[in-house]
Each structure stands twice: as structure tokens, then as C-alpha cells.
């Protein structure tokens, strides 16, 4: 009995013995490593931007922005490429925004989040966002130009040469629209999720139909998100080359595109052409840098506007 008591005491003493922990470093290493990573990123960006601004700023002028290329792109400006880019993304927005917004509204208002259909659509959208852009280009060539354009020619213009079944700005815009569809869907959905359910129910409770509720409450509320999505889609689309090289972008055109089945020049493709196909790469270098700078400023500006709209929308929400 006494022995037993002693053992218990003994065990308790063992248990109560102070523990000795291993000495730890104060964490300079992780801090240093992460900081280094940040520095590398910033440095890279600075080198890229610095290089472009250094090489390109000199050539930017009103002449450069408003005149077509001359002498095999060794002189002159880039106006047709700017015009083509704007025309292209405009068509793309017209195609992608209604489809993207309607898809998001369908997913949010008409389906159960757990249903199989919703899951399949979501997986498709995510996969669409992951498809390499060159694949979109090939798809556009095969589907829009070959199948749709070729089909239209066979039905409406059987005697003439290809009218729609050839690379054209409309097919390039539709291909880009496919590529940017996930951007529009995702940001519209994000905006839809922030709409208080109570507002939607209030509209239904007052005898609003589904369509009226979508039109008068949901879309106005989601508008900043839809706008953000469209701008992000534009800035994404404006910088893509691969999807348009088979579907409509031209090396050089003596005229501006005026019809939907015209080819067009585009900034990104123009850069690619100047860097790889020019007869004298050295001579086109300043123009090349200038074009890159214009494209960068354009996309940065668009991104900035998108971020600004989104943050001011958040502020307004927080205030209300």
C-alpha cells in the first residue's frame, strides 16, 4: 500500500518536471527569404518597364500615333494597329458581355448551386479559362472561319470566292470573346453574390416578375461588377496575339477595316511581326519599343480603371 502510494508520487513528480524546449532562432531567415523574393519581382518589373520606356518613349509622338507604317515598317506610325485593336476589342465586348452576363445570371438565379448542371457549367468555365490561347486561335480558324464562315459562303455566296470563310475581324473578335468569357462570367457572378438576397425578394414580393427583377434590381446592382469584368476582358483581349493570328490579323494593310469581314492590323500582332518578320530588325527597333509601350500603357490604363471602379463600388457598399 505504501509502495503503491510512493510510485504514484514518483510519477507525479516526473510529470511535473520542468520541460526543456529547444532553442529557436528568432526568424530572420524566413523574413529575409521572402523579402528577397519581393525584391526580385520588383527588380524584374522595373527592368522590363525601364527598358521599354527607355527604348520607346523617344519615338512616341502625335505623328507616330496617327500615321500608318511606311517603308516596310522602318518608319511611320502605328495608327492602323491602334484602330484595329480598338475595333477588335469593341466587337469582342459586344459579343462577350451579353453572353457572359446572361450565363452568370442563369447560374446565380436559375440553378441550384449543388445541381449537376451547375457543376458541369462551372467546370467548363474553369477549363475554358485554362485553355492555351493558341488553341483558341486554332479553334477559331476551324470553327468560325471554316465551319460558320465557310458554311455561310456555301449557302449565300456559292459562286463567288470566300466572303465570310476567310480570316476577318469578326471571327477574331468572336475567338477573343470565347477566350475572355470566363473573366466576364466570374466577375459578374462575384457582383451578383454581393447583392443582398433581401432586395431581390423585395422585388418579387411586390409582384415583380423574374425578368423585371433581373432588369430593374439585379443588373443595376451588378453593373459595376459587369463593367469591371468587361474592362478586364478588354485588357486581356487587347494583349493576346495567338488567338487572332489565324483568324484575322494582317501583316500589313493599306486600308483600315470598315466591314466585319475585313482583315485588320493589331498592336500585339504588329509587335510580333516587327520582331520576327521585318526585313531589317535593327531599323524597326525604336518603332517596336514604341508600339510595346503604347500597348502596355493601354492595358495598364484599362486595368487601372477596372480596379478603380471596383474599389469605389466597395466603398459605396460599405457606406450604404
Amino acid at each position, binding site marked *: 500500500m505504501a509502495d503503491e502510494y510512493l510510485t504514484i508520487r514518483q510519477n507525479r513528480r516526473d510529470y511535473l518536471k520542468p520541460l526543456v524546449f529547444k532553442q529557436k532562432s528568432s526568424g530572420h531567415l524566413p523574413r529575409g527569404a521572402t523579402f528577397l523574393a519581393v525584391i526580385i519581382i520588383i527588380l524584374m518589373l522595373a527592368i522590363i518597364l525601364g527598358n521599354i520606356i527607355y527604348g520607346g518613349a523617344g519615338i512616341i509622338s502625335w505623328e507616330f500615333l496617327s500615321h500608318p507604317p511606311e517603308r516596310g515598317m522602318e518608319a511611320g506610325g502605328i495608327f492602323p494597329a491602334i484602330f484595329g485593336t480598338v475595333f477588335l476589342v469593341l466587337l469582342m465586348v459586344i459579343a462577350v458581355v451579353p453572353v457572359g452576363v446572361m450565363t452568370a445570371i442563369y447560374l446565380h438565379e*436559375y*440553378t*441550384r448551386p*449543388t*445541381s449537376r448542371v451547375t457543376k458541369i457549367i462551372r467546370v467548363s468555365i474553369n477549363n475554358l479559362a485554362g485553355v492555351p490561347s493558341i488553341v483558341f486561335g486554332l479553334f477559331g480558324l476551324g470553327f468560325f472561319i471554316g465551319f460558320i464562315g465557310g458554311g455561310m459562303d456555301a449557302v449565300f455566296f456559292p459562286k463567288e470566292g470566300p466572303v465570310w470563310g476567310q480570316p476577318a475581324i469578326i471571327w477574331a473578335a468572336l475567338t477573343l470573346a470565347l477566350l475572355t468569357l470566363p473573366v466576364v462570367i466570374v466577375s459578374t457572378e462575384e457582383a451578383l453574390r454581393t447583392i*443582398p438576397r*433581401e*432586395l*431581390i*425578394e*423585395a*422585388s*418579387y*414580393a*411586390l*409582384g*415583380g*416578375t*423574374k425578368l*423585371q427583377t433581373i432588369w*430593374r*434590381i439585379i443588373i443595376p*446592382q451588378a453593373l459595376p461588377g459587369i463593367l469591371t469584368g468587361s474592362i478586364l476582358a478588354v485588357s486581356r483581349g487587347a494583349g493576346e496575339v495567338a488567338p487572332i493570328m489565324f483568324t484575322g490579323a494582317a501583316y500589313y494593310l493599306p486600308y483600315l477595316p470598315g466591314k466585319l469581314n475585313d482583315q485588320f492590323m493589331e498592336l500585339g500582332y504588329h509587335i510580333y511581326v516587327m520582331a520576327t518578320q521585318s526585313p531589317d530588325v535593327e531599323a524597326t527597333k525604336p518603332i517596336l519599343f514604341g508600339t510595346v509601350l503604347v500597348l502596355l500603357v493601354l492595358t495598364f490604363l484599362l486595368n487601372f480603371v477596372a480596379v478603380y471602379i471596383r474599389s469605389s463600388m466597395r466603398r459605396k457598399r460599405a457606406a*450604404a
Partner: protein
Amino acid sequence: MPQHDNQIKIINQEQSLHPDTGTKSSPNYKMMVSSLDFWYGDNKVLHDISLNVSRNMVKALIGPSGCGKSTFLRTLNRMNETIPGTRMEGVIKLDDMDIYKDFGDPSQIRTRIGMVFQKSNPFPKSIFDNVAYGLRVNGIKDIGLVSEVVEDSLRQAALWDEVKDILDNSAYALSGGQQQRLCIARALAIRPEVILMDEPASALDPLSTSRIEDLIGELKKLYTIVIVTHNMQQAARVSDETAFFFQGVLIEDGPTKEIFTRPRQKKTEDYITGRFG
């Protein structure tokens, strides 16, 4: 004026301006619910509910959280249909009309059975446009008529004197209690026959709550009211009839006085005396 009356008749589908005149058959009951079952997905939340709502009375639905009283309320104007994956069986009648079978689009029944929510939910629009919303979605464009109905509705909701000079201001500039009265005015603007209220005062301070309660007393002269409340005193104060729900089942239903003084069921007694819930 006569012409205006006609237009109002159109939205109310041949109902008079002050609807509850009791000219139809079954004059005592405005709404009749029989054998109602309701599911969220596979989860059955209402079991065989049969209940009548008397004309120009206030019916209170009480019970602990999750007992199904709000779900039940939302079946009365087909609001649950806006939630995908819900299902119901049974019959709900407004006068002689089956609200699930005799109306094509659910929006039609909701112009006759209005609703006020727990959390005040004005639209991010002006005070005027909030009240006018129901008229506009129901096709009334005449601005003279709209202004007239907006003023009338705000008066009925006892809000007119406070907002008559700031009708163009955002509804969000109003206090919580005012916002809730605005939501009541908005529901009144479509001239419903029945008003469903889902804990309309639970987010308000005592003063605003008592204003809402006074308002309910006034409104029952013109409308039939069904109110869900957590507050037993409130149920006792404002209602004529009370129904007690527990775990998706209607336990007891009767005149408020009897429910609160001589409940027939043990469960009801336990709940109203605060033994659970």
C-alpha cells in the same frame, strides 16, 4: 378619379380599392390552408399544416426558431418558389382561388398578398421610387396616379409627415424604424388584400417597435395580416388569432386570448410560459 380607380382595379384583378369588403363566399376566412407539406431538397420542414386566416384579423404565428413558421409564411405568397430545390404539396386558397393553380405567374398572387420582411430592405433608390416600385412593375405609368398612391401609402404607414419634403432622398438616409415603415408603405402601395409580416419589428428599438405595432392595429381595418413573431408579448398585443408551430407541425391554433390564457396543449403552455424556446 373614377378613371384612376379603374386602373387600380386592373392591378388588383377586379378587387376594390379597399379590398376586404367580404363579398365572396366563405366570408369568414380570407385564406385557407389545407394539408400543406413542404420540403427543402429532401428535408421535410412542414408536416400536414391546415390553418385558416380570418378576414380583417391579425394572425400571429409563434414558435421557437426553426419551427417552420417563416417557411410557412413564405408559402402563402409563393415566395419559397424563388429558392431552387424547394417543393410543396397541399392547397392554399385566397378567397376561392387556389394560389398555386389559379394564377399563372407567381408575381400575380404577390400583388394581392404583400410581404414585409424581418430586415428592412429598401431598394437603393429614392423614397418615392421605393414606394412606386410595385406600381411600376405592375404597369402603372400615369405619374399623377403614382404620386397619389405613394402619398396615400406613406400616410397609411404613418410615415408621410416625416418624409413628405424629402421624397427624392435616398431611402438609406432614413432611420431603421423609418426604413421598416417605408417597406410597409411599399407593400401597401400595390393595394394587397393580405399582408404577410416576417418578424417586422425584431430588428428595431422599443419605440419603433411600438409604432409598428400601433400601425398593425390600424392596418387590420383594411387588410388581413399574418405576422410571424418571436416576441410573445407582441403576439399577445397585436394579434386576434395565434398559431403555435413546433418542429414543422402546427400544435395549436385559436383565438389569441385562449392560446395565452387557456392553452389546450401541454407544449403550447410550456412555450408561452417560457419553459423552452
